[in-house]
């Protein structure tokens, strides 16, 4: 029978907390960058300009149809070779995560914007608002409310995805777990600790998404 011992894990709690901090920073950073870029992608898709639409769609498909793991390795190893520049692992990790998030966020944004009834834009146009004003004051405020649950859920996935940046040697939570594994040979305990940390952070978020979704469903 296996004898559990969480003591070595507690001893290394500074490493776990540091790893958690790194995970949070990369998740949060890539969410913010992904949001900005995703919005840009979404506007390309909705621009009505065929070329922009196609480029944005191609970009999205590229990121949607290949595993993030492979993308990370590519960005870190292959892209610098192709471009003849040096890309640091931290930069590669943040960039790949952000692009990946952007591809998925763009789809959520697009769905949210398209879900706002045409009548709303028309009502804005009928009082003389410009397209930009309609988007900013009428469509986006309503769309963002409506897409909030999907956005939170995608961000939860993003948080979990961040665990993959350890493959290009960024010292996130999963990375720290492996380091502690190597030192203590307590992989079950360290994976359990990681699972608990993830759960403690993500559970409230999924609850929040569900709550907002329920409230929206009632109010509509």
């Amino acid at each position, binding site marked *: 029978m296996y004898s559990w011992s969480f003591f070595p894990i507690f001893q290394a709690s500074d490493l776990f907390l540091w790893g958690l901090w790194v995970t949070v920073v990369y998740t949060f950073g890539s969410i913010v960058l992904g949001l900005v870029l995703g919005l840009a992608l979404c506007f390309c898709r909705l621009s009505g300009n065929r070329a922009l639409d196609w480029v944005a769609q191609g970009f999205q498909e590229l990121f949607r149809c290949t595993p993030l793991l492979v993308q990370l390795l590519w960005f870190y190893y292959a892209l610098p070779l192709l471009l003849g520049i040096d890309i640091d*692992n931290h930069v590669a990790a943040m960039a790949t995560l952000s692009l990946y998030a952007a591809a998925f966020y763009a789809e959520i944004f697009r769905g949210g914007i398209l879900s706002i009834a045409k009548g709303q834009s028309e009502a804005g146009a009928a009082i003389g608002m410009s397209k930009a004003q309609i988007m900013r004051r009428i469509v986006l405020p309503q769309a963002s409310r409506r897409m909030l649950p999907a956005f939170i859920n995608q961000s939860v996935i993003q948080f979990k995805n961040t665990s993959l940046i350890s493959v290009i040697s960024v010292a996130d939570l999963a990375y720290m777990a492996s380091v502690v594994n*190597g030192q203590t*040979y307590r992989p079950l305990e360290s994976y359990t600790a990681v699972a608990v940390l993830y759960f403690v952070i993500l559970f409230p978020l999924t609850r929040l998404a569900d709550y907002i979704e329920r409230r929206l469903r009632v109010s509509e």
Partner: protein
Amino acid sequence: QDTVEAVRSRGVLRIPGILNEDPYFNKDPRTGEWRGFAVEMARDIASTLGVKLEVVESSWPNSILDVQSGKADLAFGITATPQRALSVAFSAPTYFNSFVIVSPNPELAKLSWAELNDPKYTFAVDMGSSQDLISQQYLPKAKVLRFKSRDEAIVAVVSGKAVGLVNTMLNGLVMTKKTDAIGRVMVPQPVLSTPSVVAMNYGTDEKWKAFISAWAEYNRRIGNNQTWIVKSLEPFGITLDDMPEGVGFGG
């Protein structure tokens, strides 16, 4: 019922095997056949016990889990450290492993561990391995990139992400034979060597531990272990002459 009885009545001895870890382990993915000196050692133990050998596929970090969780009876090629000894039981040393730098940059050849411990150097290492522990201890100031597998560490050096990688003598020799771009094996001073042992479940009975330790001690002293190791290096064109000066397996 003690472990010897358990293994005998089961008729098989189980060890974790790791892919792409020549000369320790490797598996032909087409035939599923295992090779490597760790497998030879395990086969010897199995024949001593009169049972068959079964290799359960695993990875370096997971091989410990395999013995801890009872999926395997023994794990080979483990570097014993005091902290790890609190989690699994270790046998007497099977051989001694020296730590080396593998780098395409000849300037590093003359440097000691202390001189390599400099922020201007970036090294690659595989996460959670014994060389990872060594670099934590001896290269705290240097930049160290940790990767999931040895292969990724190699790619980091080949693609210029790191100036060199830290690994064991055995692995280093094989890698330099497999790919030129990785450079050559260098042994920084002082020569660091740690015992490589067999890991067993922490709760194992004394009889089993004593048996494995006796097996390890005997075969190390008599040179069988070295023979198995050297034989495992043959397919790569490595002989004892390729070994740097002053480095051996006997400790």
